[in-house]
């Protein structure tokens, strides 16, 4: 029957909404992570237009004159899932998504170089926000890793 069939559809949609909404409220949602690898250096003046916002922030902290985007990687992780990002200089960043608490994404970051562990850090990152990890020397500058997460 026409009208009932349409009402059925409405109810199914509502049902799905009611099932999904609590799930989204109680269980940790999947998280999207983007890691941008940047080479910061002194000497020439260069700012990659894709980094203008980040560079503006960093210029208040550091005195580098050049910010060059070397690469960008995206991951989508479920809770307790681990992903890896290959970085320059035979480095690897291992990211484990541990969950969401107080609207912050809990991540465990492990940095490796030549298969050796360099550091391990546990962080709680604001949703739709980023953390910058930097310091290793690379070519004529320093590497920065901008780690952004959103759910």
């Amino acid at each position, binding site marked *: *029957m026409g009208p*009932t069939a349409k*009402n*059925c559809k*409405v*109810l199914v949609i*509502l049902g799905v*909404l*009611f099932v999904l*909404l609590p799930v*989204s*409220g109680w269980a940790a*949602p999947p998280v999207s992570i983007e890691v941008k690898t940047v080479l910061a250096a002194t000497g020439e003046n260069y700012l990659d237009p894709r980094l203008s916002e*980040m560079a*503006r*922030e*960093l210029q*208040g*902290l550091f005195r580098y004159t050049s910010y060059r985007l070397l690469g960008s990687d995206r991951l989508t992780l479920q809770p307790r899932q681990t992903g890896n990002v290959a970085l320059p200089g035979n480095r690897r960043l291992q990211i484990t998504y541990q969950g969401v608490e107080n*609207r*912050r994404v809990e991540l465990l970051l492990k*940095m490796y*170089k030549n298969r*050796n*562990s*360099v*550091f*391990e*850090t*546990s*962080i*709680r*990152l*604001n*949703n*739709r*926000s*980023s*953390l*910058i*990890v*930097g*310091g*290793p020397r690379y070519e004529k500058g320093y590497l920065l890793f901008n780690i952004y997460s959103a*759910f």
Partner: protein
Amino acid sequence: MGDDQEHCNQEMLNRYVDRETSPEQMQRIELHLQRCPGCRQYVKLHGELAQRLQREVSASKQRVDFDELEQRIVSAARRRSDRWGHLREVLFSWKLVLPVAATAALALFFFTSLFQSPPPPGPSAIINSFTGRVSSVMILETPQSHHTVIWYSEEATEGNGADSKKL
């Protein structure tokens, strides 16, 4: 309209067309119609349109299988007369569906706004722990947007790996 302007009253003409006038009014209008081609045309047009509508509906009715429609209606009534049918009727009534939909929309808005609201003030990231074979580590924060920065020096890892920093 006609040559007898003072009598071209369309509302009255409508009542004449619809046989809603008194016999005296009818007589007066008929006299007027004899002299007024515009009003005659009005009456003729609406008489024809009524016929057209009746013919259109009649043609449509001929294409309907009313036995099948009857069965459909009776079956639907049977289905609805059982208990589940009644419950479904209540559940599917727009009186219920609309408030439920509105509630769902509000709930959706609430959850969405909860998760998409701007980040709270303070650093973008809180560092719970940091361990590793690094020669130095600094936790910094950018001045405007308070982005957290971990700055480390990995020289120690290239050496003997003797140093280890722990926060």
